[in-house]
């Protein structure tokens, strides 16, 4: 007999886990299916020797303290997750070489951040304050737009929210220019661009400044037991609210008839039915491989074609046989770049040998005791277009990875004076094929779709009503409306579940 659910969620990444947990929480009979043997996708951990490494999470935005809960903490509280989270004290340190290069560290907390920016870039206070004021204006405008389920009056927008209209869907660089922000402040304030991965000439200012503000104002957190803890807590919530989770279960087909999704077929041929399907798998993959072509509305297919696959990543994880003090490390995270020009950096994401940007983290600084006494846990991240690795063959894959690690470590040692190369006890290197292996995204992408202006947050949100024309099929994860990154993916999962709940209520 075919099993029947209210909701089937395909993929237990951050979006899928949240969608499943929230669906079950709202009383829907939920089944979560995952191809891999454990949940989490990017949000996981792995062990080597004496170390347990974080796979992906640098810092979780929109979490906030117990008194000042951010959106994600409120979501997790609603689901009853019990997590040990550590507050991040420092926003970031950035070291950029080349003309206009700098070495700057800034604190969390809005006022402290603005004051420090003024010290680092005299004369910047007014424009930096204005940036954050614009973030408030954008939030107000978003509230107006979504107050009425996305029905808004263009004239009201123009009259009451002209600041929002000027800066939303406008590149960061143009708004910085309009505010006459000093160059040094622009460069420092640009640091977080790699969390979304678009150069600032193409990056929507509203999205950017809302993100920066969420980190700085609400305070980011990290989980003490790596993101594997959040992942398992979410999976546990699915069970607690009566849902089922099947691992090692790949979904091959989504069943659609008369533009209505009604079930899935797993790799071993089992058919399972549901009124609603939430896919943590991207439109591109779903439409190419999982739904009969004649069932896909032309406009949905056109949109999926036009979107571009987001960036992938190169990460190496090191268990060090020395403590952070012995290594001379004081920062949780340093962002490195060999130029202030984000267009140039972005272009070189397509070139293994010339990629000029990386971040280096030492978890012990934020999470003391995360590795045994006298050791430390480090990892480095570089963004890449997956295609950059196209010429790599199995037999030169390890060598390619190692050469890149050697280049990056050398650069790190040169710029900080801290020597790493003689105390590596464990090392694991992940490249785009590694992400393709574990999360199955196109070219090992970790970042949904590239949020070019036409595919940024506002267009995705405002057009949502006209897109996704297969009834009962919903999408979540990094390709959702809130875009990618941990907090966004959790939010996307939450909103997919809420949409399903609303539709179920209407009998759809």
């Amino acid at each position, binding site marked *: 007999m075919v099993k029947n659910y209210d909701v089937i969620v395909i993929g237990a990444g951050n979006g899928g886990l949240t969608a499943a947990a929230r669906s079950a929480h709202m009383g829907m009979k939920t089944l979560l299916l995952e191809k891999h043997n454990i949940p989490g996708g990017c949000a996981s951990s792995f062990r080597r020797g004496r170390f347990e490494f974080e796979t992906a999470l640098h810092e979780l935005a929109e979490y906030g303290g117990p008194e000042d809960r951010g959106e994600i903490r409120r979501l997790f509280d609603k689901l009853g997750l019990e997590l040990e989270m550590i507050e991040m004290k420092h926003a970031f340190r950035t070291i950029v070489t080349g003309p206009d290069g700098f070495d700057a560290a800034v604190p969390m907390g809005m006022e402290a951040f603005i004051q420090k920016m003024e010290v680092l870039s005299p004369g910047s206070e007014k424009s930096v304050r204005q940036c954050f004021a614009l973030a408030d204006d954008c939030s107000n405008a978003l509230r107006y737009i979504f107050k009425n389920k996305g029905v808004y009056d263009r004239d009201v927008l123009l009259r009451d929210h002209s600041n929002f209209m*000027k800066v939303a869907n406008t590149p960061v660089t143009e708004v910085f220019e309009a505010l006459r922000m000093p160059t040094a402040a622009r460069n420092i304030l640009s640091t977080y661009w790699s969390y979304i991965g678009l150069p600032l000439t193409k990056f929507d200012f509203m999205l950017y400044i809302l993100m920066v503000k969420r980190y700085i104002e609400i305070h980011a957190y990290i989980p003490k037991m790596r993101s594997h803890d959040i992942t398992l807590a979410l999976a546990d919530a699915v069970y607690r609210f009566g849902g089922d989770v099947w691992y090692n*279960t790949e979904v091959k087909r989504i069943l659609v008839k008369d533009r209505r999704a009604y079930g899935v077929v797993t790799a071993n041929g089992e058919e399972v039915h549901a009124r609603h399907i939430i896919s943590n798998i991207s439109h591109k993959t779903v439409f190419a491989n999982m739904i009969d072509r004649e069932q896909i509305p032309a406009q949905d297919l056109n949109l999926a074609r036009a979107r571009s696959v987001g960036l992938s990543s190169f990460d190496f994880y090191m268990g060090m046989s020395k403590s952070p003090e012995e290594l001379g490390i004081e920062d949780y995270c340093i962002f490195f770049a060999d130029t202030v020009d984000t267009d140039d950096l972005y272009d070189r994401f397509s070139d293994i040998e010339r990629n000029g940007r990386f971040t280096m983290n030492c978890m012990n600084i934020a999470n003391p005791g995360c590795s045994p006494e006298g050791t430390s846990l480090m990892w480095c991240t570089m963004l890449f277009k997956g295609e950059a690795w196209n010429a790599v063959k199995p037999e030169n894959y390890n060598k390619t990875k190692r050469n890149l690690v050697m280049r990056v470590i050398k650069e790190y040692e040169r710029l900080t004076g801290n020597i790493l190369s003689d105390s590596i006890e464990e090392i694991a290197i992940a490249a785009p094929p590694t992400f393709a292996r574990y999360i199955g995204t196109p070219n090992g992408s970790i970042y949904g779709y590239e949020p070019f202006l036409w595919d940024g947050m506002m267009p995705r949100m405002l057009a949502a009503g006209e897109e996704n024309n297969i009834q009962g099929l919903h999408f979540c994860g990094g390709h959702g409306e809130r875009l990618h990154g941990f907090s966004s993916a959790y939010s996307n999962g939450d909103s997919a579940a809420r949409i399903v709940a609303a539709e179920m209520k209407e009998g759809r």
Partner: protein
Amino acid sequence: MQNNIELIGLDPENFWRAMEERRNVIVADSAEELPREYAMNILAARLHPHQQYFIISQVKEHGPDAKSYVLEPDKSCGATECAYFSAGQYLAVYLEIGGSRLWRPYSICSGPAEALQGRCVLTVKRAKDGFASEFILANWQAGTKVVTSGPLGHFSYEPLRDAKTVVGLAGGSGITPFHSLACAIRDGVDDFDLVLLYGSRNSDDILLKEEFDAIAAQCDRVKVVHVLSDEKKAGYENGFLTAELIQRYAPAGDYSVFVCGPRAMYDFLETELPKLGLSPRRVRHELFGEYKISGRESGYAARETNAKIVIRGEERTIKCLPGESLLSAMERAGIAAPSQCRSGECGYCRSRLLQGEVFVPSHVDGRRLADFKYGGIHPCCSFPLGDTAIEVPM
């Protein structure tokens, strides 16, 4: 009220441009097909195939107790290549023995360069009470089809981490990954010097002796010293792999120690290796292997228990014999539970403990911190302390 901010040169009508562009994208009918697959996903599948389908093309006997099997892609199953690997890695081999269905890890004996020629070699030595090795030696022959995992494990040379010289300590069938590493050095795939101290009972017992002699003759970066515990013979060392012996053959400067052998050897080295005064980063062990629990383990009371196995909501109850891991009990009951390393490390068998308690020996406890909170266990190294219920991901 919005903030009063002068935004020089920005036009609010700009806002609609991105929306219009999106609408144009959606109506523009393109003939371009969505890609069905991508280069990185193809590369990932070649590097890390979920399963490999082989056929045995050749069998070589090494005395009465060991054989080497040459595996080639089984074209009848659509296989075209042998996944490239790092010397020292293993394959988990799928076996059906009587009513049991199980996976067993075997180190790849051949070098990575051979994989590019479309073949790899597994060498199997009869183990004492070896359920799988007895079966393989008795049954595998030319033409036998073999299903394996992709290449797995971390017992490989890593120049970013290891010293330029590795002192290999091998015992019994633990020689096979070192053979792969030696081939990789000879073939220019890996770049280090290997001094191998290989412990056997007597000179007749040495596995792959001719093969190592041939490599050493071709390549001066590989040196093999045979250490016989039960025989005194000219040209051979006599005794065990002591710290003193290691020091005699180790280079004067920096070196790494790689260890692969039976548990007795690991136990012996636990007191010998610290005498060398090496940093922990300079000592690496291959997987512990099937954990044979003894009644003496503290906290473990061996008795027969019931284990309820939940798979996709379907339940069945099986018997778990004294000394048997939950994984072995499932396999004996004909459940082809997922597993790879069988040493507690890789986590591929990870299941969820729903009821009861299990004993996990500390040196094969590969669980992650958060697993302890949510009942994540590795059945391959989990021994029930009473009746249990587990959910198995399959």
